[in-house]
Protein backbone atom coordinates (compact mmCIF):
# COMPACT_ATOMS: atom_id res chain seq x y z
CA UNK A 1 0.00 0.00 0.00
CA UNK A 2 1.31 3.39 -0.89
CA UNK A 3 0.91 6.67 0.97
CA UNK A 4 -2.52 7.53 -0.47
CA UNK A 5 -3.99 4.19 0.49
CA UNK A 6 -2.68 4.46 4.04
CA UNK A 7 -4.17 7.92 4.23
CA UNK A 8 -7.52 6.61 2.90
CA UNK A 9 -7.52 3.81 5.47
CA UNK A 10 -6.72 6.30 8.21
CA UNK A 11 -9.46 8.73 7.12
CA UNK A 12 -12.08 6.03 6.87
CA UNK A 13 -11.12 4.49 10.22
CA UNK A 14 -11.32 7.86 11.95
CA UNK A 15 -14.56 8.78 10.23
CA UNK A 16 -16.14 5.41 11.02
CA UNK A 17 -15.08 5.61 14.66
CA UNK A 18 -16.40 9.15 14.95
CA UNK A 19 -19.71 8.27 13.33
CA UNK A 20 -20.08 5.22 15.55
CA UNK A 21 -19.48 7.33 18.64
CA UNK A 22 -21.98 9.91 17.45
CA UNK A 23 -24.76 7.44 16.58
CA UNK A 24 -27.38 6.70 19.25
CA UNK A 25 -26.67 3.92 21.71
CA UNK A 26 -27.92 0.46 20.85
CA UNK A 27 -30.05 0.11 23.97
CA UNK A 28 -31.03 3.73 24.23
CA UNK A 29 -28.57 4.65 26.97
CA UNK A 30 -27.55 8.26 27.08
CA UNK A 31 -24.05 8.73 25.75
CA UNK A 32 -21.72 10.85 27.84
CA UNK A 33 -20.72 14.33 26.71
CA UNK A 34 -17.15 13.15 26.49
CA UNK A 35 -18.09 10.33 24.08
CA UNK A 36 -20.04 12.70 21.87
CA UNK A 37 -17.20 15.22 21.94
CA UNK A 38 -14.69 12.53 21.00
CA UNK A 39 -16.95 11.42 18.14
CA UNK A 40 -17.33 14.96 16.87
CA UNK A 41 -13.59 15.61 17.10
CA UNK A 42 -12.76 12.39 15.25
CA UNK A 43 -15.32 13.15 12.52
CA UNK A 44 -13.99 16.67 12.04
CA UNK A 45 -10.46 15.33 11.89
CA UNK A 46 -11.52 12.79 9.26
CA UNK A 47 -13.26 15.54 7.26
CA UNK A 48 -10.11 17.67 7.33
CA UNK A 49 -7.96 14.71 6.35
CA UNK A 50 -10.41 13.88 3.55
CA UNK A 51 -9.63 17.22 1.99
CA UNK A 52 -6.07 16.01 1.50
CA UNK A 53 -7.49 13.91 -1.35
CA UNK A 54 -8.95 16.88 -3.18
CA UNK A 55 -6.60 17.86 -5.92
CA UNK A 56 -6.68 21.42 -7.10
CA UNK A 57 -5.95 21.63 -10.81
CA UNK A 58 -8.08 24.68 -11.52
CA UNK A 59 -7.89 28.30 -10.37
CA UNK A 60 -7.93 29.22 -6.69
CA UNK A 61 -11.49 30.39 -6.05
CA UNK A 62 -13.35 27.36 -7.53
CA UNK A 63 -11.12 25.11 -5.42
CA UNK A 64 -12.04 27.01 -2.28
CA UNK A 65 -15.71 26.77 -3.16
CA UNK A 66 -15.38 23.07 -3.92
CA UNK A 67 -13.71 22.49 -0.55
CA UNK A 68 -16.44 24.41 1.28
CA UNK A 69 -19.30 22.66 -0.52
CA UNK A 70 -17.78 19.18 -0.28
CA UNK A 71 -16.94 19.51 3.42
CA UNK A 72 -20.35 20.89 4.29
CA UNK A 73 -22.07 18.15 2.26
CA UNK A 74 -20.26 15.31 4.01
CA UNK A 75 -20.41 16.95 7.43
CA UNK A 76 -24.13 17.66 7.13
CA UNK A 77 -24.59 14.06 5.99
CA UNK A 78 -23.00 12.79 9.20
CA UNK A 79 -25.16 15.16 11.23
CA UNK A 80 -28.27 13.98 9.34
CA UNK A 81 -27.81 10.40 10.39
CA UNK A 82 -26.72 11.17 13.95
CA UNK A 83 -29.31 13.75 15.00
CA UNK A 84 -31.67 12.45 17.66
CA UNK A 85 -34.47 14.74 16.54
CA UNK A 86 -35.87 13.88 13.07
CA UNK A 87 -36.70 17.55 12.45
CA UNK A 88 -33.01 18.37 12.78
CA UNK A 89 -32.23 15.42 10.51
CA UNK A 90 -34.48 16.87 7.81
CA UNK A 91 -32.90 20.30 8.17
CA UNK A 92 -29.38 18.89 7.96
CA UNK A 93 -30.45 16.96 4.88
CA UNK A 94 -31.57 20.28 3.39
CA UNK A 95 -28.02 21.47 4.02
CA UNK A 96 -26.69 18.39 2.20
CA UNK A 97 -28.93 19.21 -0.76
CA UNK A 98 -27.82 22.84 -0.86
CA UNK A 99 -24.14 21.85 -0.76
CA UNK A 100 -24.71 19.30 -3.50
CA UNK A 101 -26.33 22.00 -5.60
CA UNK A 102 -23.20 24.07 -5.12
CA UNK A 103 -21.14 21.13 -6.38
CA UNK A 104 -23.47 20.86 -9.39
CA UNK A 105 -22.90 24.53 -10.13
CA UNK A 106 -19.15 24.03 -9.98
CA UNK A 107 -19.48 21.12 -12.41
CA UNK A 108 -21.34 23.35 -14.85
CA UNK A 109 -24.81 21.93 -14.26
CA UNK A 110 -26.63 25.12 -13.38
CA UNK A 111 -30.12 23.98 -14.41
CA UNK A 112 -29.71 20.85 -12.33
CA UNK A 113 -28.55 22.89 -9.33
CA UNK A 114 -31.67 25.05 -9.50
CA UNK A 115 -33.88 22.01 -10.05
CA UNK A 116 -32.37 20.16 -7.12
CA UNK A 117 -32.95 23.09 -4.80
CA UNK A 118 -36.53 23.53 -6.00
CA UNK A 119 -37.49 19.86 -5.96
CA UNK A 120 -35.58 18.63 -2.91
CA UNK A 121 -35.26 21.58 -0.58
CA UNK A 122 -38.50 23.15 -1.71
CA UNK A 123 -40.84 20.21 -1.98
CA UNK A 124 -39.52 16.93 -0.62
CA UNK A 125 -38.05 18.22 2.63
CA UNK A 126 -41.11 20.34 3.37
CA UNK A 127 -43.26 17.24 2.89
CA UNK A 128 -40.96 15.31 5.22
CA UNK A 129 -41.30 18.05 7.81
CA UNK A 130 -45.08 17.92 7.47
CA UNK A 131 -45.09 14.18 8.07
CA UNK A 132 -42.72 14.51 11.02
CA UNK A 133 -44.98 17.10 12.58
CA UNK A 134 -48.06 14.98 11.92
CA UNK A 135 -46.55 11.84 13.34
CA UNK A 136 -44.38 13.09 16.18
CA UNK A 137 -46.32 15.67 18.06
CA UNK A 138 -45.19 14.54 21.49
CA UNK A 139 -41.49 15.24 21.93
CA UNK A 140 -38.62 12.86 21.34
CA UNK A 141 -39.44 9.22 20.90
CA UNK A 142 -37.54 6.32 22.40
CA UNK A 143 -36.68 4.77 19.05
CA UNK A 144 -34.91 7.95 17.96
CA UNK A 145 -32.45 7.47 20.80
CA UNK A 146 -31.84 3.80 19.96
CA UNK A 147 -29.85 2.61 16.95
CA UNK A 148 -30.26 -0.74 15.27
CA UNK A 149 -26.86 -2.48 15.32
CA UNK A 150 -24.83 0.75 14.98
CA UNK A 151 -21.48 -1.04 15.05
CA UNK A 152 -22.28 -3.46 12.25
CA UNK A 153 -23.92 -0.73 10.16
CA UNK A 154 -20.93 1.61 10.52
CA UNK A 155 -18.51 -1.21 9.79
CA UNK A 156 -20.28 -2.26 6.59
CA UNK A 157 -20.85 1.27 5.34
CA UNK A 158 -17.31 2.41 5.85
CA UNK A 159 -15.93 -0.87 4.48
CA UNK A 160 -17.86 -0.07 1.30
CA UNK A 161 -16.35 3.42 1.31
CA UNK A 162 -12.88 1.97 1.78
CA UNK A 163 -13.41 -0.36 -1.19
CA UNK A 164 -14.52 2.55 -3.40
CA UNK A 165 -11.52 4.63 -2.29
CA UNK A 166 -9.18 1.76 -3.02
CA UNK A 167 -10.58 1.34 -6.54
CA UNK A 168 -10.39 5.09 -7.13
CA UNK A 169 -6.79 5.31 -5.97
CA UNK A 170 -5.87 2.34 -8.13
CA UNK A 171 -7.15 4.21 -11.18
CA UNK A 172 -5.54 7.43 -10.14
CA UNK A 173 -2.07 6.34 -9.19
CA UNK A 174 -0.53 4.83 -12.37
CA UNK A 175 -0.32 7.58 -14.96
CA UNK A 176 -2.31 10.43 -13.60
CA UNK A 177 -3.56 11.28 -17.10
CA UNK A 178 -6.51 8.96 -17.48
CA UNK A 179 -8.26 9.72 -20.75
CA UNK A 180 -12.01 9.44 -21.22
CA UNK A 181 -13.04 6.61 -23.51
CA UNK A 182 -15.32 8.63 -25.79
CA UNK A 183 -13.34 9.94 -28.74
CA UNK A 184 -13.48 13.62 -29.22
CA UNK A 185 -15.26 14.29 -32.50
CA UNK A 186 -13.98 17.67 -33.47
CA UNK A 187 -16.02 18.78 -36.44
CA UNK A 188 -19.75 18.80 -36.91
CA UNK A 189 -19.39 17.05 -40.24
CA UNK A 190 -18.44 13.86 -38.45
CA UNK A 191 -21.94 13.73 -37.06
CA UNK A 192 -23.60 13.37 -40.44
CA UNK A 193 -25.93 10.46 -40.03
CA UNK A 194 -24.35 7.60 -41.90
CA UNK A 195 -26.46 5.51 -44.21
CA UNK A 196 -26.83 1.91 -43.23
CA UNK A 197 -23.78 0.15 -44.60
CA UNK A 198 -24.16 -3.02 -46.56
CA UNK A 199 -22.27 -5.16 -44.10
CA UNK A 200 -25.34 -5.40 -41.89
CA UNK A 201 -27.15 -7.33 -44.59
CA UNK A 202 -24.41 -9.34 -46.26
CA UNK A 203 -21.14 -10.11 -44.63
CA UNK A 204 -19.14 -8.16 -47.16
CA UNK A 205 -15.94 -6.26 -46.56
CA UNK A 206 -15.94 -3.89 -43.59
CA UNK A 207 -16.39 -0.33 -44.68
CA UNK A 208 -13.73 2.17 -43.65
CA UNK A 209 -16.28 4.25 -41.77
CA UNK A 210 -17.46 1.36 -39.61
CA UNK A 211 -16.09 -0.14 -36.44
CA UNK A 212 -16.13 1.36 -32.95
CA UNK A 213 -15.86 4.93 -34.21
CA UNK A 214 -18.87 4.38 -36.45
CA UNK A 215 -20.89 2.92 -33.60
CA UNK A 216 -19.93 5.77 -31.27
CA UNK A 217 -20.69 8.41 -33.89
CA UNK A 218 -24.15 7.03 -34.46
CA UNK A 219 -24.80 6.52 -30.74
CA UNK A 220 -23.58 9.94 -29.59
CA UNK A 221 -25.73 12.45 -31.40
CA UNK A 222 -24.61 16.06 -31.77
CA UNK A 223 -27.30 17.14 -29.33
CA UNK A 224 -25.79 14.93 -26.64
CA UNK A 225 -22.51 16.85 -26.54
CA UNK A 226 -21.92 19.23 -23.69
CA UNK A 227 -21.48 22.83 -24.82
CA UNK A 228 -18.01 23.34 -23.40
CA UNK A 229 -14.73 24.33 -24.92
CA UNK A 230 -14.16 20.91 -26.45
CA UNK A 231 -17.41 20.95 -28.41
CA UNK A 232 -17.46 21.66 -32.14
CA UNK A 233 -17.95 25.24 -33.17
CA UNK A 234 -21.75 25.40 -33.67
CA UNK A 235 -22.35 23.93 -30.21
CA UNK A 236 -20.57 26.66 -28.30
CA UNK A 237 -23.17 29.34 -28.88
CA UNK A 238 -26.12 27.28 -27.63
CA UNK A 239 -27.31 28.40 -24.17
CA UNK A 240 -27.25 25.95 -21.32
CA UNK A 241 -30.94 25.27 -20.78
CA UNK A 242 -31.69 25.22 -24.51
CA UNK A 243 -29.01 22.58 -25.07
CA UNK A 244 -30.25 20.51 -22.13
CA UNK A 245 -33.78 20.70 -23.49
CA UNK A 246 -32.56 19.72 -26.92
CA UNK A 247 -30.93 16.57 -25.63
CA UNK A 248 -33.86 15.77 -23.31
CA UNK A 249 -36.46 15.99 -26.02
CA UNK A 250 -34.54 14.34 -28.82
CA UNK A 251 -32.20 11.72 -27.42
CA UNK A 252 -34.12 10.89 -24.25
CA UNK A 253 -37.70 11.53 -25.31
CA UNK A 254 -39.00 8.14 -24.20
CA UNK A 255 -37.30 8.48 -20.82
CA UNK A 256 -38.95 11.86 -20.33
CA UNK A 257 -42.36 10.43 -21.17
CA UNK A 258 -41.82 7.49 -18.85
CA UNK A 259 -40.77 9.86 -16.05
CA UNK A 260 -43.93 11.89 -16.51
CA UNK A 261 -46.07 8.76 -16.42
CA UNK A 262 -44.23 7.64 -13.29
CA UNK A 263 -45.00 10.93 -11.55
CA UNK A 264 -48.67 10.59 -12.46
CA UNK A 265 -48.85 6.99 -11.22
CA UNK A 266 -47.10 7.95 -8.00
CA UNK A 267 -49.61 10.75 -7.48
CA UNK A 268 -52.56 8.39 -7.97
CA UNK A 269 -50.98 5.77 -5.72
CA UNK A 270 -50.17 8.21 -2.93
CA UNK A 271 -53.68 9.64 -2.95
CA UNK A 272 -55.33 6.23 -2.99
CA UNK A 273 -53.12 5.06 -0.12
CA UNK A 274 -53.24 8.03 2.18
CA UNK A 275 -56.88 9.09 2.01
CA UNK A 276 -58.56 8.52 5.37
CA UNK A 277 -61.23 5.85 5.44
CA UNK A 278 -64.40 5.65 7.44
CA UNK A 279 -63.71 4.14 10.84
CA UNK A 280 -65.18 0.72 11.47
CA UNK A 281 -67.64 0.81 14.33
CA UNK A 282 -68.03 -2.15 16.72
CA UNK A 283 -71.62 -2.69 15.52
CA UNK A 284 -70.38 -3.27 12.00
CA UNK A 285 -67.74 -5.71 13.17
CA UNK A 286 -70.41 -7.71 15.01
CA UNK A 287 -72.45 -7.74 11.82
CA UNK A 288 -69.49 -9.12 9.91
CA UNK A 289 -68.82 -11.84 12.47
CA UNK A 290 -72.53 -12.68 12.61
CA UNK A 291 -72.42 -13.34 8.90
CA UNK A 292 -74.98 -10.86 7.75
CA UNK A 293 -74.16 -10.61 4.03
CA UNK A 294 -76.19 -7.49 3.31
CA UNK A 295 -74.62 -5.63 6.22
CA UNK A 296 -71.14 -6.77 5.22
CA UNK A 297 -71.70 -5.61 1.66
CA UNK A 298 -72.91 -2.23 2.84
CA UNK A 299 -69.87 -1.99 5.08
CA UNK A 300 -67.55 -2.88 2.24
CA UNK A 301 -69.12 -0.19 0.10
CA UNK A 302 -68.73 2.29 2.89
CA UNK A 303 -65.09 1.53 3.72
CA UNK A 304 -64.00 1.54 0.13
Amino acid sequence: MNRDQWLATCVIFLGGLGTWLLLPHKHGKIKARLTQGCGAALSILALLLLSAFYTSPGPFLPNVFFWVFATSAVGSGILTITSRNPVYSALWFASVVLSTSGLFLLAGASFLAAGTIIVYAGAIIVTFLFVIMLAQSEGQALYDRMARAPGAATLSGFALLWAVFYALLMVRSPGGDFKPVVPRLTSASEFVKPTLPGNFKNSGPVLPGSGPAFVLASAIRPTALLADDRAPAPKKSVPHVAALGATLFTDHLIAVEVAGTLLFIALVGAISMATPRTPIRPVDREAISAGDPAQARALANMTN
Partner: protein
Amino acid sequence: MFPFDLLANYLIVGAALMAIGMVGFLARRNLIVMFLSAEMMLQGVAVTLVGFGRFHGNWTGQVFTIIILTVAASEAAIALALVLVLFKRRSSLDVSLWNDLREPGLPLSVENPDEAEAPEIVPGPESYPHLTVAGIEPPHPRQPWERPRD
Protein backbone atom coordinates in the same frame (compact mmCIF):
# COMPACT_ATOMS: atom_id res chain seq x y z
CA MET B 1 -11.57 21.92 -18.86
CA PHE B 2 -12.39 19.09 -16.54
CA PRO B 3 -9.38 16.85 -15.95
CA PHE B 4 -9.49 13.50 -14.21
CA ASP B 5 -8.19 14.96 -10.94
CA LEU B 6 -11.26 17.15 -10.69
CA LEU B 7 -13.49 14.17 -11.51
CA ALA B 8 -11.82 12.21 -8.70
CA ASN B 9 -12.83 14.93 -6.24
CA TYR B 10 -16.44 14.55 -7.25
CA LEU B 11 -16.20 10.75 -7.04
CA ILE B 12 -14.80 10.98 -3.50
CA VAL B 13 -17.61 13.24 -2.33
CA GLY B 14 -20.22 11.06 -4.03
CA ALA B 15 -18.83 7.88 -2.48
CA ALA B 16 -18.72 9.49 0.96
CA LEU B 17 -22.35 10.64 0.72
CA MET B 18 -23.41 7.20 -0.47
CA ALA B 19 -21.62 5.42 2.41
CA ILE B 20 -22.99 7.81 5.04
CA GLY B 21 -26.49 7.35 3.68
CA MET B 22 -26.06 3.59 3.85
CA VAL B 23 -24.93 3.77 7.47
CA GLY B 24 -27.94 5.89 8.32
CA PHE B 25 -30.34 3.58 6.53
CA LEU B 26 -28.97 0.55 8.36
CA ALA B 27 -28.57 2.09 11.80
CA ARG B 28 -31.52 4.38 12.39
CA ARG B 29 -34.94 3.13 13.44
CA ASN B 30 -37.11 6.09 12.53
CA LEU B 31 -38.85 5.46 9.20
CA ILE B 32 -38.47 9.08 8.12
CA VAL B 33 -34.76 9.25 8.93
CA MET B 34 -34.29 5.99 7.00
CA PHE B 35 -35.89 7.61 3.99
CA LEU B 36 -33.77 10.72 4.36
CA SER B 37 -30.72 8.45 4.32
CA ALA B 38 -31.94 6.76 1.14
CA GLU B 39 -32.35 10.17 -0.47
CA MET B 40 -28.81 11.01 0.62
CA MET B 41 -27.53 7.91 -1.19
CA LEU B 42 -29.32 9.18 -4.31
CA GLN B 43 -27.60 12.55 -3.87
CA GLY B 44 -24.21 10.85 -3.78
CA VAL B 45 -24.98 9.02 -7.00
CA ALA B 46 -26.17 12.29 -8.58
CA VAL B 47 -22.86 14.00 -7.75
CA THR B 48 -20.98 11.09 -9.32
CA LEU B 49 -23.14 11.15 -12.45
CA VAL B 50 -22.79 14.89 -12.98
CA GLY B 51 -19.03 14.64 -12.58
CA PHE B 52 -18.81 11.80 -15.08
CA GLY B 53 -21.05 13.61 -17.55
CA ARG B 54 -18.86 16.69 -17.42
CA PHE B 55 -15.72 14.59 -17.73
CA HIS B 56 -16.95 12.80 -20.84
CA GLY B 57 -18.32 15.99 -22.33
CA ASN B 58 -21.92 14.97 -22.87
CA TRP B 59 -25.27 15.62 -21.29
CA THR B 60 -26.10 12.05 -20.32
CA GLY B 61 -25.05 12.40 -16.70
CA GLN B 62 -27.25 15.42 -16.14
CA VAL B 63 -30.18 13.84 -17.98
CA PHE B 64 -29.88 10.74 -15.83
CA THR B 65 -29.73 12.91 -12.72
CA ILE B 66 -32.95 14.62 -13.79
CA ILE B 67 -34.56 11.18 -14.12
CA ILE B 68 -33.24 10.31 -10.64
CA LEU B 69 -34.80 13.53 -9.32
CA THR B 70 -38.15 12.53 -10.81
CA VAL B 71 -37.98 9.04 -9.37
CA ALA B 72 -36.97 10.45 -5.98
CA ALA B 73 -39.96 12.76 -5.99
CA SER B 74 -42.35 9.90 -6.81
CA GLU B 75 -40.64 7.73 -4.22
CA ALA B 76 -41.01 10.41 -1.57
CA ALA B 77 -44.72 10.79 -2.33
CA ILE B 78 -45.37 7.05 -2.13
CA ALA B 79 -43.11 6.57 0.88
CA LEU B 80 -44.69 9.34 2.89
CA ALA B 81 -48.17 8.00 2.10
CA LEU B 82 -47.00 4.57 3.29
CA VAL B 83 -45.43 6.06 6.40
CA LEU B 84 -48.70 7.80 7.23
CA VAL B 85 -50.65 4.55 6.80
CA LEU B 86 -48.14 2.65 8.95
CA PHE B 87 -48.23 5.38 11.57
CA LYS B 88 -52.00 5.19 11.71
CA ARG B 89 -51.88 1.46 12.38
CA ARG B 90 -49.23 1.39 15.12
CA SER B 91 -49.07 5.02 16.29
CA SER B 92 -45.30 4.96 16.02
CA LEU B 93 -42.63 5.52 13.39
CA ASP B 94 -40.43 2.74 14.77
CA VAL B 95 -39.43 0.35 12.00
CA SER B 96 -38.76 -2.56 14.36
CA LEU B 97 -42.47 -2.75 15.19
CA TRP B 98 -42.85 -4.30 11.75
CA ASN B 99 -40.54 -7.17 12.61
CA ASP B 100 -43.24 -9.65 11.65
CA LEU B 101 -42.84 -8.69 7.98
CA ARG B 102 -39.40 -10.31 7.82
CA GLU B 103 -38.78 -13.64 6.14
CA PRO B 104 -39.47 -16.73 8.23
CA GLY B 105 -36.45 -18.11 10.05
CA LEU B 106 -34.55 -14.84 10.28
CA PRO B 107 -33.46 -13.43 13.65
CA LEU B 108 -34.91 -10.24 15.04
CA SER B 109 -33.13 -7.09 13.97
CA VAL B 110 -33.51 -5.66 17.46
CA GLU B 111 -32.26 -8.05 20.09
CA ASN B 112 -35.00 -7.48 22.59
CA PRO B 113 -38.28 -6.57 20.93
CA ASP B 114 -39.72 -5.53 24.28
CA GLU B 115 -37.48 -2.51 24.14
CA ALA B 116 -39.42 -1.25 21.18
CA GLU B 117 -42.54 0.67 21.92
CA ALA B 118 -45.51 -1.60 22.43
CA PRO B 119 -47.57 -1.95 19.28
CA GLU B 120 -51.17 -0.92 19.51
CA ILE B 121 -53.26 -3.44 17.62
CA VAL B 122 -55.80 -1.74 15.40
CA PRO B 123 -58.92 -3.91 15.15
CA GLY B 124 -60.83 -4.37 11.98
CA PRO B 125 -60.23 -5.96 8.60
CA GLU B 126 -57.18 -5.05 6.57
CA SER B 127 -57.87 -2.09 4.38
CA TYR B 128 -56.09 -1.90 1.06
CA PRO B 129 -56.49 0.79 -1.55
CA HIS B 130 -59.40 0.03 -3.81
CA LEU B 131 -59.40 1.37 -7.34
CA THR B 132 -62.38 1.29 -9.63
CA VAL B 133 -61.97 -1.14 -12.50
CA ALA B 134 -61.25 0.68 -15.74
CA GLY B 135 -64.18 0.96 -18.13
CA ILE B 136 -66.86 0.73 -15.48
CA GLU B 137 -68.65 3.86 -14.49
CA PRO B 138 -68.14 4.45 -10.76
CA PRO B 139 -71.30 4.73 -8.69
CA HIS B 140 -72.21 8.28 -8.00
CA PRO B 141 -75.49 9.93 -7.11
CA ARG B 142 -77.44 11.19 -10.06
CA GLN B 143 -78.79 14.67 -9.70
CA PRO B 144 -82.47 15.08 -10.62
CA TRP B 145 -81.66 17.17 -13.67
CA GLU B 146 -79.26 14.51 -14.91
CA ARG B 147 -81.85 11.76 -15.15
CA PRO B 148 -82.97 10.85 -18.63
CA ARG B 149 -86.44 11.96 -19.54
CA ASP B 150 -89.20 9.45 -19.95
